[in-house]
């Protein structure tokens, strides 16, 4: 009991209770068109879940997110390592990467829409574009920061190029890539919702749009809550993976 009181659980629980109470109060004192109380949101969430509609939308969004995100990782990491090792290619491509990294990706959606229409592929492209740059950027910066002395140690022990990547460059870079992955989770989720807003007839994002147009505010809140919790879960997962790969860093 003492440990719970002195630990982080008490402030955490109190804050949650206060937040929910505030939400409830605010919801009860504003027009239902703007905001609904916590209790009503929960009720609507339960309805959506019970009807099976939520599961379908969730699965749809998850498929989109995982596909786009996996592509971002599978392309971003090897490409980042390659750019770190091939200086001239990096110098040539760096300005484009910087510009794309800095550009709010939402601005590209109309262009993607006009190029590719409403299928699954353009949505995946949006998630991919949102997610790849933190992964790519962190991988390049990480791989470049490796000490030349360690490369020299590998050479002294007669490492071949493949073993150099396997034993030195990749393990050194992984924690940096994972930092990028964690950042990319947040961006990827934004990409997922944005893609579903503009390019979709399915998914959680589209469900939010539909509910909003139907003035179903409690559904809007319920869906936002689902996405928010999904984001928190994914961030935590990313942090766990990052720490697992960064065990050797003090």
């Amino acid at each position: 009991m003492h440990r719970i009181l002195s630990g982080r659980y008490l402030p955490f629980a109190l804050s949650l209770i206060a937040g929910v109470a505030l939400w409830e109060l605010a919801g009860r004192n504003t027009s239902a068109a703007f905001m609904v109380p916590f209790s009503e949101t929960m009720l609507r969430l339960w309805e959506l879940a019970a009807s099976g509609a939520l599961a379908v939308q969730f699965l749809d969004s998850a498929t989109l997110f995982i596909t786009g995100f996996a592509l971002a990782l599978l392309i971003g990491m090897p490409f980042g390592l390659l750019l770190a090792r091939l200086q001239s290619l990096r110098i040539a491509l760096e300005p484009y990467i910087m510009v794309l990294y800095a550009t709010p990706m939402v601005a590209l959606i109309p262009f993607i829409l006009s190029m590719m229409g409403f299928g699954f592929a353009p949505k995946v492209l949006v998630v991919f574009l949102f997610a790849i740059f933190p992964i790519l950027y962190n991988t390049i910066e990480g791989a470049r920061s490796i000490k030349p002395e360690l490369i020299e140690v590998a050479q002294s022990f007669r490492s071949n190029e493949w073993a150099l990547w396997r034993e030195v460059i990749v393990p050194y870079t992984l924690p940096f890539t994972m930092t990028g992955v964690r950042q990319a989770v947040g961006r990827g989720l934004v990409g997922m919702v944005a893609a579903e807003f503009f390019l979709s007839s399915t998914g959680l994002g589209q469900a939010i749009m539909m509910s909003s147009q139907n003035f179903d505010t409690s559904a809007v809140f319920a869906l936002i809550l689902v996405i928010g919790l999904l984001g928190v879960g994914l961030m935590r997962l990313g942090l766990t993976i990052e720490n697992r790969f960064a065990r050797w860093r003090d």
Partner: protein
Amino acid sequence: MVAVSTREKLKPMVNSGNNAIRIRVRGLGKRYGALEVFRGIDLEAGDHEIVAIVGPSGCGKTTLLRCIDGLLAVDSGEVVVDSERVTSPIAGVAMVFQHFGLFPWKTVYDNVAYGLRMAGISRAEITRRVPHFINLVGLKGFEKAFPYQMSGGMQQRCGLARALAIEPRVLLMDEPFAAVDAQTREILQFELLRIWEQRPTTMLFVTHSIEEAVLMGDRVVVLKGRPSNIHETIAIDLPRPRTRDTLREPRFGELRERVWGTLMSEARQAEFQLGA
């Protein structure tokens, strides 16, 4: 003459190292762009011989070792190890680095296993050898530790084990104990001597400590000048095995003074300090 045990009689009191030449460096020259580091270096090391190389910092000791290890291309001259001309790192030569050079993401065990894996040694042999060399350097119990969890002295023990594990013919030591505190350094010096007695190899031992050079070396090579060159080679006729007692022998003091004198014979070598 003091009595010596039969075991010690079997080998020469003074290690002359004149049997087979293991390392032969001829006319070696190296420059970094406009900076000529050294020129016309001639150096030989025999089987089981320890050649200590002293010189002020910046005189090119590390560069010389990197050339001998085949990590750096030379501009003139050649390096031959066991009649093999060195142009890239060759098998059977291992280096111990001043900065330890441990892979921070690998445990002690995996760091020691690294050289063996690169050498294509069988898995069974690796699992046999790694614990042996971890014990030899006194790191038993730290197999699973990461470098950041260990002191500098322990990290260099690990670096030493990694080099020894490939059972090299030639060991290249680049100021291996320069980055650890004085007390640890002394302990490590005598441990290295003990290990070397058990399994002597040819060793080039680079240091900027005169005492350390005299303690370790069968010969001390003095590198100085800009571009640097071998100024003098001093034979160290101290008996082996060398122990803490060696430090108290009058002959040790004489030799230390000789190396000191050689290094100081030109005025501006002020950055030098005496002491191991």
